[in-house]
């Protein structure tokens, strides 16, 4: 290692350190505040207490709401990954005129549907379909909104899979679905994992759709429960909010670590062109 490399390496670590600090700094509040008896916006080293946690656990909706979030997130992720993968594969391999224009238009439309103005049509539609107060209904609406972007992203991954793989698989008599499952999916696993995590994150934080479509408080996900820790005048109860935020974040981080470990975002090898 030359001295220049050495200095470069030091500089690199300093930069990584700074970036890490940038991402970590705002989160300090989340680490300290849940254990603080008198939480405020000030960052303080608290006299540690678990009082906020026991107060939170007294809320009978707290833990079930996390389970509800998991159900909605996994349901949506399964639908989005499965449907986006098949659709992206098909769109990538079979040329349809105007395909890209169509995809992009759908993507743009999805940005409209996330807005409050679209809540009236969505509610009325779900009402006519009898899907009010149904988790399935929430999963369908969320999936519909997320699919265009998922297809968009996955198509890039599909495009980069060498077609020679599939040609050889065909020679051995594999069906189209077998090719997708056994040849293409393993190659684009990082892309699928990205889509899965992205879907879960989007569902996890979504307040408006489940709130408008669900009626039974026992079905509401954690993102909705989070909005209830306020007073009648709208002042936040920082003790409960910070504590629940901590619990709220853990499942997603665990899911991410699991997906990362199992499917690995870094996938080397396999592709030789």
């Amino acid at each position, binding site marked *: 290692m030359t001295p220049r490399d050495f200095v470069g390496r030091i500089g690199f670590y300093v930069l990584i350190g700074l970036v890490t600090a940038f991402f970590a700094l705002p989160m300090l509040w989340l680490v300290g505040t849940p254990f603080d008896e*008198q939480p*405020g*916006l000030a960052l303080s080293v608290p006299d540690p207490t678990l009082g906020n946690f026991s107060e939170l656990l*007294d*809320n*009978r*909706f*707290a833990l079930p709401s996390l389970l509800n979030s998991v159900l909605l997130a996994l349901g949506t992720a399964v639908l989005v990954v499965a449907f986006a993968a098949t659709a992206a594969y098909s769109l990538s391999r079979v040329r*349809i*005129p*105007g395909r890209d224009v*169509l995809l992009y238009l759908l993507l743009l439309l999805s940005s409209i549907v996330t807005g*409050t103005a679209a*809540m*009236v*049509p969505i*509610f*009325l*539609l779900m*009402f006519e379909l009898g899907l*009010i107060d149904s988790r399935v209904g929430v999963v369908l609406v969320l999936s519909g909104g997320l699919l265009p972007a998922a297809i968009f992203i996955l198509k890039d991954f599909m495009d980069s899979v060498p077609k020679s793989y599939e040609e050889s698989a065909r020679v051995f008599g594999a069906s189209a679905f077998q090719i997708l499952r056994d040849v293409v999916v393993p190659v684009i696993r990082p892309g699928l994992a990205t889509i899965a995590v992205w879907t879960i994150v989007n569902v996890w934080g979504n*307040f*408006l759709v489940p*709130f*408008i479509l669900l*009626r*039974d*408080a026992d079905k509401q996900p954690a993102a*909705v*429960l989070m*909005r*209830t*820790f*306020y*007073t*009648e*005048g*709208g*002042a*936040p*109860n*920082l003790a*409960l909010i910070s504590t629940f935020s901590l619990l709220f974040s853990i499942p997603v981080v665990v899911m991410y670590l699991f997906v990362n470990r199992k499917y690995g975002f870094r996938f080397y090898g396999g592709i030789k062109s």
Partner: protein
Amino acid sequence: MTRIARIIAIMTGLALVATGCLGQSDEEPSDTQRGAEATEVTLTIAANAVSGGKNAEEADWIENYVIPTFVEQQQADGVDVTVEFQSSGVDDEDYKSKIALDLRTGSGADIVSLDGIWVGEFAEAGYILPLTEVVGDSVEDWDGWEQIPDAVQANMAFNDERYGVPAGSDGRVLFFNKDLFAQAGLPADWQPASWEEILDAGRALQGISGVTPIQLNAGTAMGEATTMQGVLPLLVGTGQRIYDEDAGTWQGNTQNVRDVLTFYQRVYGEGLGDPTLQQEAQGRDKSFAEFAAGTIGILMEGDYFWRSVIEPTAGVAPMPTRDEVVGYTKLPAMTPGSGLDGQDFVSMSGGGGWVLNPATEFPQQAWELLTFMNSAEATTELVAGGARLTQREDVNDEILADDPMLSFIAEEVVPLSAYRPGLAVYPQISVALQQATLDVVTGMPPDEAAAKYQEAVEAALGGADDIASD
């Protein structure tokens, strides 16, 4: 044409058909006695309250008292009633959207909690009907009405028809820190008689370092808090409501509005208030924390501030010394006698209530449940956990006797109080008022800000026809 393009074409057609559903047709008046003889009845109550969260006492009251007690009473009469509670406990605007959607589709709970300010717009939209149309004339016979003051009843009425039963009331006053007042040589039983005397007190407090003399909510970041705990209480102190129901006009660029904005200019221009705080997204919460920490001298708020913000143990900005240190006093009119109806002191009130869903299957039973919820017995039970102002005078007399602050609100403030107009355009007017105060706080002369406000009101109403200006 591809399959996808075809699907899109079909969906477009469907969308155009569906747009027919956007509006609502007037429905036939239905039989108010429907389901009255049923022996198996299911009723649902919806409120913006949730156990363990926002308005938790109300949610617990419904779940632990109202439902079991009512079910038991009905069983004694041989009726098998199931009562469900649909809890929400979120931001008021979100709750409003949700129940609006429920009501427009003819679904939703049988008994729905509604902010008084929404009654007009919900009635105009046809989402709710006068109680006599839902239940029948027997509504008039309820003995609870005589316990509820007319002004409070008016909060759940529209065009002189009762749409619901009010569920409490409140009032706005000036809170002040007696410790700081003592340091500034001001009396502990302070009662200003005019705006000028508020400014005088502010100037006296200015000498104490680290203290903001006056917190007068301003700006758009504070949202409705600026309007309800700032502009409107001042405006009624000049003798005008924001909307004159008799004349059908909104306040535009009038002397009254300019007077209010001039008061803002004097508070913030003389350094009696903290202009930065008004622009922060969490400014209101910070003002609460600062008042609790003893660094704000005078603050205008509703009794909610006393009950749930600086409440010594459970408040969001608890103030252990609240009872000794915090004083409260009526808001004076601009000058003695200049207030609404020649009053010397003024206030604004709000509060919610319960309406019946016109689409209920069991109007009679729903009304029975509603009157039970508003009986003296049930109301007393509701406030057992912590005193607050109820809609019923008999209950107030009993439970507020030990609570000087709330008795003060009930006896001295509520009778002076005015209410906001419950019209759909009101939120836009409110935003225009907030912007005008922000302009003044950030240095615009009041005349200019008032002229700009007038333009905003004209845009909101689509013309100057219904605007008073001079």
